[in-house]
């Protein structure tokens, strides 16, 4: 694989990664969000795979396959369980409305460029140039955690946050040490289990997780 085509593919893939992240901020259907999370994780997997093939690093390829299994299959499947299958599967209420969310996401991206400028300037390689994309995915995930009310979306945002960290790692280095990565994975899994338990607990206590839903009506 030539440098040019590797970089081009790498950019595309990380662009797709960012696209799916942003689309989660847009989408209202919770199952749709989970699907986007899967797509996001697949983009992450491809990021690792590409780097692995380019660097001819078998460990990296192996790591990306682990990512595919855990992040694209495992975690989304668990999160999907937290969504009430019979009740409301839509995220109608948001602290920030959709249009504003979209524009804020754009602002976050711009901010990520400013934030990472000194880092990129330190080592201006072509791959590092896409660091802002990873950082903006990170910030978007934080934004989602802060502004979303549904537990499921918060879980998704959390998983997204984790994916973004990995993406940044792929951009910055040739891949993270396997141990660190697996440790992080376990952490996240643990947390998600806790949150799922919390969510189902909450659901049983209060029938509706989204009481303020009626406010949307006069829009």
């Amino acid at each position, binding site marked *: 694989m030539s440098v040019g085509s590797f970089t081009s593919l790498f950019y595309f893939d990380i662009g797709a990664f960012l696209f799916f992240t942003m689309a989660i901020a847009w989408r209202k259907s919770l199952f749709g969000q989970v699907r986007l999370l899967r797509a996001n994780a697949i983009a992450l997997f491809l990021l690792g795979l590409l780097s692995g093939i380019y660097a001819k690093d078998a460990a990296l390829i192996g790591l990306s396959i682990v990512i595919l299994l855990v992040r694209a299959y495992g975690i989304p499947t668990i999160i999907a369980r937290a969504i009430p299958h019979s009740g409301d599967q839509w995220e109608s209420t948001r602290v920030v409305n959709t249009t504003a969310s979209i524009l804020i996401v754009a602002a976050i991206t*711009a901010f990520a*460029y400013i934030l990472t*400028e000194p880092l990129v*300037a330190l080592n201006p390689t072509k791959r590092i140039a896409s660091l802002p994309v990873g950082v903006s995915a990170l910030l978007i995930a934080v934004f989602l955690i802060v502004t979303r009310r549904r537990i499921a979306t918060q879980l998704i945002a959390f998983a997204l946050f984790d994916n973004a960290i990995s993406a940044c790692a792929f951009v910055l280095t040739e891949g993270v040490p396997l141990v660190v990565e697996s440790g992080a994975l376990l952490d996240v899994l643990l947390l998600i289990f806790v949150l799922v338990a919390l969510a189902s607990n909450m659901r049983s206590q209060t029938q509706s997780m989204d009481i303020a839903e009626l406010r949307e009506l006069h829009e």
Partner: protein
Amino acid sequence: MISSQITNPKAVESDQIKKRFDPMGRFFVIMICTLSALVAISATTIALLAITRPPWHGSTNLFLAIYGLKLATDPLSGVFLLISGSLGVMVIPHLYGYLRRNHLPTTTVIAIPIFIFTMALVPLANSTPTFFFFWELMALASVPLVAAHPNDQSGRRATFVYLAMTQLGAMAILVALAIISASHPGTPLAGLSALSSRDSNTLRSLAFLLALIGFGSKAGIVPFHIWLPKAHPQAPGPASALMSGAMVSLGIYGIIRFCILSLGTGAKWWAITLIVFGSITAIYGILQASVNKDLKVLLAYSTAENMGLALIAIGLFQLFRILHLPNLAAEALGAGVLILVAHGLFKGLAFLVAGSIQSEIGITDLDQLGGLAKIMPVSTVGFGIAALSASGLPFGSAFIGEWLLLQTIIHLPRDIGSLVLIGPIALGVVALTAGLSVLTMVKAFGIGFLGTPRSKRAGEAHESSTTMSTSIIALMIANLGLAFDPGVINFVILHLSESISGVYPRIALGSRISITTTSSAIFPSIGAALFIVGAIAIYLIRRFTASKRPQPLDEIRWGCGAKELTPKMQYTATSFAEPLERIFSDILVPRRDIETDAFDSLDLIVKRIDLRESPHDAIETALWNRLARALDLVASQFRRFHNGSLIRYLMLGGLGFAVVMVVTH
């Protein structure tokens, strides 16, 4: 002399009758107009000389005992003198017609020539005291223009707000000037440039901010814009035209002269501050314009929008100077100047038409106008051209300036780091502004001039007098001239840019406008020619096929089977604004109140519904009213020290001025 804010129709009616029978003396009006014309013509002449000839300066000790009166010309002052002078010349016939038809307080009428005179002197001032003297004089001369309806509550309030903002601005300018001249006593303004960079940065930054506030309040920069929508509906049409087209631009002159040239290159954040304020002003101004339904208020907000755009251009100019990109800087300055020149022409035209409507109908509320196209054809075409220009569309005079601004933005160099983000952000602002101004102008033109009259008085109106139409036609020609051949002011851009940046901009202005290094070009005449060819083709086809069709019929409009459509069934200006109010509700914070008188508790059998929609300025409500209340609280402690008289305020201002002068000397 009727303001749109008067709600009692009977009062309006009797006022109308009184106005018709109580015109001002012919001799007096002729005298005033001649005087104004003389001032305007000489201002224009001096402007042309100032731009093309080498700088001139002179001084006299006649007026100000301490420093003497110092005057000078350079291309920058020439540009602004040209804007006010040429607009003044074109406005005079309308002024004559307006004064012949409407009764105004004598002070207001006398203030007009003085106002034009002082506007001409401000850019000519060559020392800080001289400048401040003329600036204050201009501010004071403009107050009686706003106070044209002293008996009306909203008129008094407008005058008060205008006076307050003017004096607030003047105070800020005073301190800024004091700081500037303290470090360089006696230096002429034209020579101040780049001298100040050795001064302390904190002090310079303070001076920059104060000057920005002071001049920004004159230019209607948000949040200091609140006087614009209040003062303009009060002032007579021609005076509004001058205030909006020329005086407001002098605020930008002040920013260029002091914030950029006198204070030296400055820090990057200065430039960013200018761009941010410009962006906020442009978007907030056009948003308010798009939701307001009074024609003059709408135009006033649109003035703020245009000043915001000009400020963006000036901010880019400053930024490029700091980044040592003289060519781009020259382009940005050229864009800013073109925006200001075009704004003077189209806003002057729009306000003159609004003045004609004010004079002939007495209402400027769009929801009570309509159908003027059939009864006021000249004014309608005039407003159409003004609206086309204000929308920033091809074939309008503002397009060139906005296009140059966009070109400046998209040719940002790649190697300036995160600053490059200014490009997409500024472009987004300019684009949103352009889009909304299209909507605003279509609303103003479509609701106000097309369709059928929404009120009896609008239906009974006539075209304004020939003299008034003369001004409108002159400005129409000027606008079209600038739109199709901006080459007429090419020399302005060239001289200005050479005198400020020392380089010629790469803009080639002519009937073909291009940026020489980038192969971006537009050619309005070719576009117009294509339109004409297309129109002829369609006309010919229609003529050719007409014989094959049945004769055209006149039929009533589609009313879904109902026989008549009433004027209430046409769209209103408030309605046009409503979707935007919804979309931008976070910024505009709309207020609506529905009162229902129902027979039962569930509103099933309703006897009466009343809706009250109150457009308001969210910034005014949130910021200034709160500030005013807080001040009021403080002021109540000191109430016995002053009685609110104008003279005492001015005396205080003068005292402060004298103190600062003595201290800094």
